[in-house]
């Protein structure tokens, strides 16, 4: 059974569709494991590139979150939409976006998923229906709600998954978005990835109701909490949540996950005790999943070795691609201010005069004595 606890303020009129089988095939289990390893290696390599100043800005990693990422993304259909926050490299990988294009975006290169305009926090790929990482905490919630509104308006069968961290549940947009989704019965699943820390502030310090999934009761919305270190449990919980959303009952899913490192690459996380760090390491979802599969005889040491070697190769190729990709041409600076061109749009580089063709002072037809 997936380790979920479900709270429900009252029965919904529409029944929730059954979740897919809780027991994935051996091939699926191996695929989950390999994807988790790829995310781990990608993020470790990104951290190194950041430390070498090849990646700029902020860089938030999914280290410790790999099981949640893999479980959630595997429950989606190709036509579903994903909105997430700034800790999203793994989600983009799991959604099938080419690792080299993600790495190129982190490097700020022209072949990046957002053409070098977004960076680590703003990955986007329309073909994958990966509708953006967003750097403002909570900014993606109203947007994702609106995407679900568009689906509802057009009568489609797609759903939206909107990810957020635990800290996001305290922002006004959380309340407004969940309320809108509930009154309009939108096809959306809000997913709280609860790693216990909003930067350095604990959930207990920040949230009057630290069992975050219970917040859904305020909107008479179905909700559940799942062990975010178990990709199979996450996948089953997400599938059930998506079935509910598609039937017109939006859902709040909380995945209790871990954060192996600081808030971002530069954060040494001195606010965490040795015991807390040890506990996070002990709960490492990749090691835990591997141990479970090994014990059950569904994964071999050779397969582990292969997964690590293949991940290393993929990540090395991504880095090589990123390093070879050109920097965006400064002449493209004004290409994406507006989608519909308009007259009098400013296209001046810093320091350029407003009126470069202004005649010289001596030719001006002024009656102003000072200018003559």
């Amino acid at each position: 059974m997936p380790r979920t606890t479900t709270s429900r303020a009252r029965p919904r009129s529409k029944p929730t569709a059954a979740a897919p089988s809780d027991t994935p095939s051996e091939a699926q289990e191996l695929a989950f494991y390999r994807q988790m390893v790829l995310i781990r290696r990608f993020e470790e390599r990104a951290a190194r590139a950041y430390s070498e100043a090849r990646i700029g800005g902020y860089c938030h990693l999914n280290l410790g979150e790999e099981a949640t990422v893999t479980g959630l993304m595997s429950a989606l259909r190709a036509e579903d939409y994903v909105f997430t926050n700034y800790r999203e490299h793994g989600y983009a990988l799991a959604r099938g976006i080419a690792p080299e294009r993600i790495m190129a975006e982190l490097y700020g290169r022209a072949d990046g998923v957002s053409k070098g305009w977004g960076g680590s926090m703003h990955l986007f790929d329309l073909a994958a229906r990966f509708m953006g990482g967003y750097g403002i905490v909570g900014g993606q919630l109203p947007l994702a709600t609106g995407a679900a509104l568009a689906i509802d308006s057009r009568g489609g069968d797609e759903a939206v998954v909107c990810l957020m961290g635990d800290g996001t549940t305290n922002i006004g947009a959380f309340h407004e978005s969940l309320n809108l989704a509930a009154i309009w019965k939108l096809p959306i699943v809000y997913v709280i990835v609860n790693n216990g820390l909003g930067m350095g502030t604990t959930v207990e310090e920040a949230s009057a109701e630290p069992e975050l999934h219970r917040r859904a009761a305020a909107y008479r919305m179905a909700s559940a909490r799942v062990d975010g270190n178990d990709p199979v449990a996450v996948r089953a919980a997400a599938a059930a949540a998506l079935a509910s959303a598609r039937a017109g009952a939006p859902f709040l899913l909380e995945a209790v996950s871990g954060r192996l490192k600081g808030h971002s690459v530069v954060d040494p996380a001195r606010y965490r005790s040795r015991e807390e760090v040890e506990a996070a390491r002990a709960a490492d979802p990749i090691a835990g999943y591997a141990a479970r599969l090994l014990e059950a005889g569904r994964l071999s040491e050779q397969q582990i070795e292969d997964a690590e070697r293949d991940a290393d190769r993929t990540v090395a190729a991504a880095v090589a691609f990123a390093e070879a990709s050109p920097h965006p041409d400064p002449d493209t600076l004004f290409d994406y201010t507006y989608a519909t061109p308009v007259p009098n749009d400013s296209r001046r580089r810093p320091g350029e005069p407003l009126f470069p063709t202004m005649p010289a002072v001596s030719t001006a037809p002024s009656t102003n004595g000072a200018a003559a």
Partner: protein
Amino acid sequence: MTVISYRQALHDALREELLRDEDVLLMGEEIGRFEGSYKITAGLLAEFGAKRVRDTPIAEEGFTGAAVGAAMLGLRPVVEIMTINFSLLAIDQIVNHAAKIYGMFGGQAKVPLVIRTPGGGGQQLGATHSQNIELYYAFVPGLKVVAPATPADAKALMLAAIRDDDPVLVLENLALYNTSGEVPEDLEPAEIGRAAVTRTGRDVTVVAYSRMAVVALDVAERLAAEGIDVEVVDLRSLRPLDRDTIVASVQKTNCAVVLEDDWLTYGIGAEIAATISDGAFDWLDAPVRRVAMAEVPMPYAKSLELAALPSAEDAAAAIRETVDAVARRR
């Protein structure tokens, strides 16, 4: 040509677009059953139904952001924010999201969103309900901001805004809703980003937008009787700003007065004055004057509100003084 109100012109534009394009939908507080706080959307819920004329809870950040997200998937939402004062509740979604999404993701997602919202004082609504803060949005690349002064422009700019693939804020004005003017029945969408010379004259350029563009024409007629020939430039678009039309006018008249309902310091008029300084420095025969709202939170009492708002008399005085200053130099 028919004469209709500014309110009716906005209503007609919305209705025509709802009929023309099934991706257009309206969202906002009290726009459906209540028919809009200012009745712009009267009758539209009955005609188009609750999915296309969608009443929202009091949640400006939520529903404005939801409109942005719906626009990313190809709908063309027109959001009513009851007054521009309340847009501050949604400013994260407008400035950090609507304005950024097209560029930040390298042109992959367009945001064909319209936010319509009235500004304006003079209704004794006090400090929080009388502001003119369009500057906050006109400051932001990625947004377009238009400010119609006439019924014809209200309709033509609204049509243009809805058909535009970028987020456009349409600044309406409480004091203009009941004004009337001629609107051709087959009116075409306006071109966003163009000012209009709404009165030609040779003595002084008056630059204004929204309510003050109407005041400007009124003052110009009065001053004509005194022998002052005023040229009026109605900006119509605050971003992009049509600097060429402003500068061409000042190169003809050699002086300028800006009329604005917002606060003076850092206001729209400051940008106009800087534009004139850059583009018509050698033509100027007097400093650029700005007539703006007094720099106070708007008071409630009528006597104080009238003292705070720029009036036709304030505008006329500034124009006379400017023309006099030019005459003294010649």
